[in-house]
């Protein structure tokens, strides 16, 4: 099973995403921003960072890259795609997911361990969770405030497309405490918090049992393995 991990100039969490893929048991295929094909991968992760400096709007320049064009096409054909943080922003700028992401309400970057509720488990990246499971993974962003117009919000809520919601405090002013979305088909998921930073004990969020032992993020990658095998 091969999972592509995309690197744009300015991508930062690509090595972390690759590590997560490996720990979950899949093979990593590095994808470069200039790649026009996806090298037959079974799924793609768009990792976090500041692609092209995140200038203009986060993810806007990356949305124009050749590899993104290829991903959009493949995603419309059902390829599982996970966008994390900047990757979520790229998905939104490519219109694979609706709405937009703007500057945090507090006007500054925020990095903390964030509790989330998994609100939908019918997607390629969430099927290993239990419905309404509470998880903790790191959050780190400067522009993570999710916005959408009233109609879009109604549709998202009505069709169960909100995949994750912030618990114990909304860190960035996102409407309806939205932390992540899935598309109708369930192959595309985007979220601001970082599952790839919670896959290895010793380097994740604190838990009640030990410092930095949280590995709730691993389930994202286990989900896609299941999804691809079952597909």
């Amino acid at each position, binding site marked *: 099973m091969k999972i592509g991990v995309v690197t744009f100039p300015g991508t930062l969490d690509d090595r972390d995403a690759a590590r997560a893929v490996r720990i979950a048991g899949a093979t990593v295929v590095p994808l470069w921003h200039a790649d026009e094909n996806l090298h037959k991968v079974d799924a793609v992760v768009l990792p976090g960072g500041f692609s092209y400096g995140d200038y*203009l*709007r986060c993810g*806007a320049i990356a949305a*124009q890259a050749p590899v993104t064009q290829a991903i959009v096409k493949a995603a419309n054909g059902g390829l599982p795609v996970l966008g994390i943080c900047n990757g979520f922003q790229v998905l*939104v*700028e490519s*219109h694979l997911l*609706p*709405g*937009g992401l*703007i*500057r*945090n*309400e507090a*006007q500054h970057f925020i990095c903390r361990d964030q509790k989330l509720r998994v609100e939908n488990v019918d997607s390629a990246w969430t099927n290993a969770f239990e419905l309404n499971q509470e998880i903790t993974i790191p959050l780190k962003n400067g522009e993570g*405030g999710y*916005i*959408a*117009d*009233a109609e879009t919000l109604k549709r998202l809520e009505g069709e169960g497309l909100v995949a994750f919601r912030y618990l114990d405090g909304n860190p960035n*002013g996102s*409407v309806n405490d939205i932390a992540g979305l899935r598309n109708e088909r369930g192959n595309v998921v985007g979220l601001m918090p970082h599952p790839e930073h919670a896959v290895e004990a010793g380097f994740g969020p604190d838990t009640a049992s030990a410092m930095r032992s949280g590995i709730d993020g691993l389930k994202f990658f286990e989900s896609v393995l299941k999804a691809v095998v079952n597909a």
Partner: protein
Amino acid sequence: MPKIIVEVMPKADLLDPQGKAVANALHRQGHANILNVRIGKRIELHTAGVPTEAELAEAQKIADSFLSNGVIEDVVKIHVEN
């Protein structure tokens, strides 16, 4: 140098946390007459010569498709300055 100036603002009915923060700061400083603040972008595209009609049309397209994100922003003005 001639420039095409593109002005982009967040959509009126969406949140603008930055504008809100600035408005709050102005109110704390006592500027009660400023009811609200909204913050957008002023983008200058520098061109070699005075822009032609075709170039302006192209700029309009760039403004709509790339310099702004129509889901959350509006292009409020495009004009030329020499």
